[in-house]
């Protein structure tokens, strides 16, 4: 059947425009717009005494200068705290422009609008801000220990504190279970800051139409629907007069789910105030110091286990650095705390985190969103247990796996969506078997011995994870078939390179039985679909994919109903093949969907030949029935929503072989293997691409990327010269194998795949280096210098 496209490695329909320079990213829009630039704080913590703009107003081409004092109404209030939580007792958010106090280097203080960006920056350079410098708080341990405060009204710098505890089957708390266990271990783990770092930074373009009093905003965002609501609320505009569009977006990886950014409300406000289009495009340094980071945690682990390595009790204390503000709540440490358990059945579990303020850039989700830290903790724990027992690391993991017949498996925790953490499906023993085969785990001993004989040091490592994907609350899809036979699909969530136009078209073409060329897909445009949550948490395929499938099924049903009438057949005898409704097994009796679309919309006006066929005087309609039957609507279209009862849980296991240089401590990844289970694959080519990209970011986080703050709160490596993202020369070839354990929770049986690749990489690389070197690796990322120093400590 020509229209079975679900599951095929269909080439991407995004590519022709992106390969020819015809993509449209925010900065490509709005030629002739005024441009904004910002004066940002050079200090991590300071009081603003005075802002002197007198020299700046002389700049030719300057249009406006705004400080906090100029902001009206709700715009002068702090930005929203997007995800409140009872444990976040001291949530704090920034003002769009700093009011009195700045709390991190890069915080916006003054907005300048000028004829172009060069001139706006000229004016910024001439604005003198008089600061009284205050002592900053840098690093989680200083935040907890220090008597200095990031926010004067947040004692101890603690924004949130949460304890979650799941007792063992026989009712023991984790601490009791550990005390009663035959063996115990305790250790500390450190993970540094990294960041999403999409190659396109943030950007906003706003156009105010004074004639119909409407605002159109383009933003490089992962959630246009919510940015729209935030703008309407902040600027006091009726929602129908605000539209927000995410055009082509040059990567997101989490940072663009944060919203509204100060610029997302300030630029539209300036456009309205000035009666002129205004645009702001973030530059790279701004992205480093004024968007968001993630990852940094200190974890203290205590574990009790038996002779087989089965974990009887696990107690984890986490210090989480959330930076200067908490606009995105405490989603990241909650995910760490809940996803830490991975594919394992743990006797008793206790997790406690404190999320603390520091005078650094705020922390919001970056691909993986707290999971890499949790997996690092759990997988280091498994390796330490194996080392203690002298057992194979995979055997210890296998001894703890949840078994295939135990699903649905309730971990007894509350997940990030506020719903129970119940795993829907998976097959962890099979996944491990496949991984061991793919990497050659059992034969590695020989390889290691051979390498040693040649004076080379190699090691193998493993990491397993379970990822809650496709979190609710919902997404929707709208499908319309027009009288030219075209199928128009829209969904509200946004795209940042995941190939949604392709996979959603595959789903629609398969569901409707039409050629894929006839299907067009629009995402992230509130003019087309206003109800949506956004793209994050590996949710787009699960949420919008299923919503679109459901909408297609509605349209299909309607098409069959109308066609059945026209063909005088029973709808149950009809099928749709190649865009034609036909009586199964009776090739002569068929009617194209374009004609069904015409019939669905009885018109008065014949603007073309197709429409002429639908006017009320064409064809023989029954005089006993209204032209639009009761309960029907004109048009061959349908809208539906998918709202899952809870998240679906994808899983995977990675293994790597690394080589470390005996002299220079250089670390090279020789092989990298991935077994991945995201349920049914819509497009295996795209899923593979997601995994490759995720692993590359994971390699960055494991070996290269960290945000280096000095004691003054200055980010020392705020450029691509100094923040080392991997090039092609640093990323290994990723060998993949897929296991498909369909999700029972959704009609398509799919699970999310977007974040998977990045999640276990630090754990895997630490495991492999530890195996190669025989030195505990408890801190990531690890550079050759770090490893060299560790060798010195270990031997000295």
């Amino acid at each position, binding site marked *: 059947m020509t229209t079975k496209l679900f599951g095929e490695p269909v080439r991407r329909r995004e590519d022709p425009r992106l390969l*020819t320079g015809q993509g*449209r990213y925010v900065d490509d829009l709005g030629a002739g717009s005024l441009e904004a630039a910002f004066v940002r704080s050079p200090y991590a913590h300071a009081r603003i005494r005075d802002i002197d703009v007198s020299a700046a107003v002389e700049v030719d081409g300057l249009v406006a200068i705004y400080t906090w004092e100029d902001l009206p109404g709700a715009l002068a209030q702090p930005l929203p705290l997007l995800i409140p939580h009872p444990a976040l007792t001291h949530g704090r958010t920034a003002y769009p422009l700093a009011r009195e106090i700045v709390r991190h280097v890069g915080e916006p203080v003054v907005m300048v609008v000028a004829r172009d960006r060069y001139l706006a920056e000229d004016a910024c350079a001439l604005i003198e801000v008089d600061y009284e410098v205050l002592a900053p708080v840098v690093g989680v341990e200083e935040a907890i220990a220090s008597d200095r405060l990031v926010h004067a009204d947040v004692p101890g710098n603690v924004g949130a504190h949460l304890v979650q505890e799941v007792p063992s089957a026989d009712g023991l708390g984790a601490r009791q279970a550990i005390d009663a266990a035959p063996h115990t271990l305790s250790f500390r783990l450190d993970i540094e800051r990294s960041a999403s770092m999409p190659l396109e930074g943030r950007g906003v373009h706003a156009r105010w139409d004074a004639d119909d009093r409407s605002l159109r905003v383009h933003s490089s965002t992962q959630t246009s629907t919510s940015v729209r609501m935030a703008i309407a609320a902040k600027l006091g505009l009726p929602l129908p007069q605000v539209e927000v569009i995410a055009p082509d977006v040059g990567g997101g990886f989490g940072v663009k789910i944060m919203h509204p950014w100060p610029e997302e409300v300030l630029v539209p406000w300036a456009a309205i105030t000035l009666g002129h289009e205004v645009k702001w495009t973030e530059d790279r340094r701004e992205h480093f110091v004024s968007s968001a980071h993630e990852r940094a945690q200190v974890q203290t682990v205590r574990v009790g286990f038996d002779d087989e390595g089965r974990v009887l009790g696990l107690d984890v204390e986490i210090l989480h650095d959330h930076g200067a503000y908490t606009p995105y709540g405490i989603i990241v440490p909650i995910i760490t705390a809940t996803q830490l358990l991975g594919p394992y059945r743990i006797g008793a579990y206790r997790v406690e985190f404190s999320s603390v303020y520091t005078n650094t850039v705020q922390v919001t989700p970056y691909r993986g969103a707290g999971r890499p830290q949790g997996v690092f903790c759990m997988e280091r724990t498994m390796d330490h247990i194996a080392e203690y027992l002298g057992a194979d690391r995979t055997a210890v993991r296998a001894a703890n796996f949840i078994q295939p017949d135990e699903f649905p498996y309730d971990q007894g925790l509350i997940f990030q969506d506020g719903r129970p953490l119940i795993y829907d499906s998976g097959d962890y023993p099979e996944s491990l078997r496949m991984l061991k085969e793919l990497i050659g785990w059992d034969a590695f001993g020989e390889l290691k011995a051979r390498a040693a004989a040649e004076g080379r040091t190699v090691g193998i490592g493993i990491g397993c994870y379970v990822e809650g994907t496709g979190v609710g609350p919902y997404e929707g899809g709208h499908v319309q078939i027009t009288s030219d036979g075209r199928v128009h699909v829209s969904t509200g969530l946004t795209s940042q390179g995941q190939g949604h136009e392709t996979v959603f078209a595959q789903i629609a073409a398969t569901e409707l039985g039409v050629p894929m060329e006839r299907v067009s897909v629009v995402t992230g445009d509130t003019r087309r679909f206003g109800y949506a949550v956004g793209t994050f948490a590996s949710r787009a395929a699960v949420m919008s994919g299923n919503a679109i499938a459901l909408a297609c099924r509605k349209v299909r049903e309607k098409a069959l109903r109308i066609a059945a009438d026209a063909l005088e057949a029973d709808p149950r005898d009809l099928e749709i093949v190649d865009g034609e409704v036909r009586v199964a097994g009776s090739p002569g009796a068929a009617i194209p969907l374009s004609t069904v679309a015409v019939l669905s919309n009885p018109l008065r006006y014949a603007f073309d030949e197709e429409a002429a066929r639908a006017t009320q005087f064409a064809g023989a309609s029954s005089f006993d029935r209204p032209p639009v039957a009761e309960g029907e609507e004109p048009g061959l279209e349908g809208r539906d929503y998918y709202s899952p009862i809870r998240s679906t849980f994808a899983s995977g296991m990675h293994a790597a072989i690394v080589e470390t240089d005996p002299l220079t401590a250089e670390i090279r990844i020789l092989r990298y293997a991935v077994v991945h289970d995201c349920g049914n694959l819509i497009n295996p080519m795209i899923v593979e691409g997601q995994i490759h*990209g995720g692993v590359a970011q994971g390699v960055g986080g494991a070996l290269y990327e960290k945000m280096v703050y000095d004691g003054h709160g200055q980010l020392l490596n705020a450029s691509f010269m100094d923040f080392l*993202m991997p090039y*092609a020369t640093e*990323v290994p070839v990723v060998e993949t194998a897929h296991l498909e354990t369909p999700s029972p929770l959704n009609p398509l049986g799919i699970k999310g795949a977007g974040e998977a690749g990045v999640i276990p990489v630090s754990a895997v690389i630490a495991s492999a280096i530890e195996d190669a070197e025989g030195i505990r690796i408890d801190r990531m990322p690890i550079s050759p210098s770090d490893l060299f120093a560790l060798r010195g400590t270990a031997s000295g």
Partner: protein
Amino acid sequence: MHEITLTVNGTVRQARVPARRLLSDCLRHDLGLTGTHVGCEHGVCGCCTVLLDGEPVRSCLTFAVTVDGREITTVEGLAAPDGTLSPVQRAFAECHGLQCGFCTPGFLCTVTALLRENPAPTRQEVVEGVSGNLCRCTGYQNIVASVHRAAEIMAEESPTSEQTGENEENEGRVRRS
């Protein structure tokens, strides 16, 4: 302000720019060729790579006035005049060598020049050849595959390919499974 004349994608274009105008901004905002992207403005990421008299350069580190009278090819000029995608562009589509597409124009320009210099590169030569361009989406694996595939397409389409047959052996070639 300075009057400059550039030949961009075969068309003579004129612009009036201040001395500090970056070539990237001139192409994007004065000439409307927004296919060239700017990812870091300090010459590291390679998104802004264009071909200057055939050689890849960072347009974000080049003042427009310094290239007065020169010939520039941007991503908009890589396809044939009839719109047929170049072998490099086709290979990237075939091998899923792009995701968000932001770094892609830089890669396409870099690879176009790379394969002109070395029509049958080894894997190591490809990896080195694209090691001045950052991509945050793909993990590079499919980009490397795309370069090999582009070399293959070029060899297949070259009128002399039958005599040389050089696309057949080439050790280290990566093929997509």
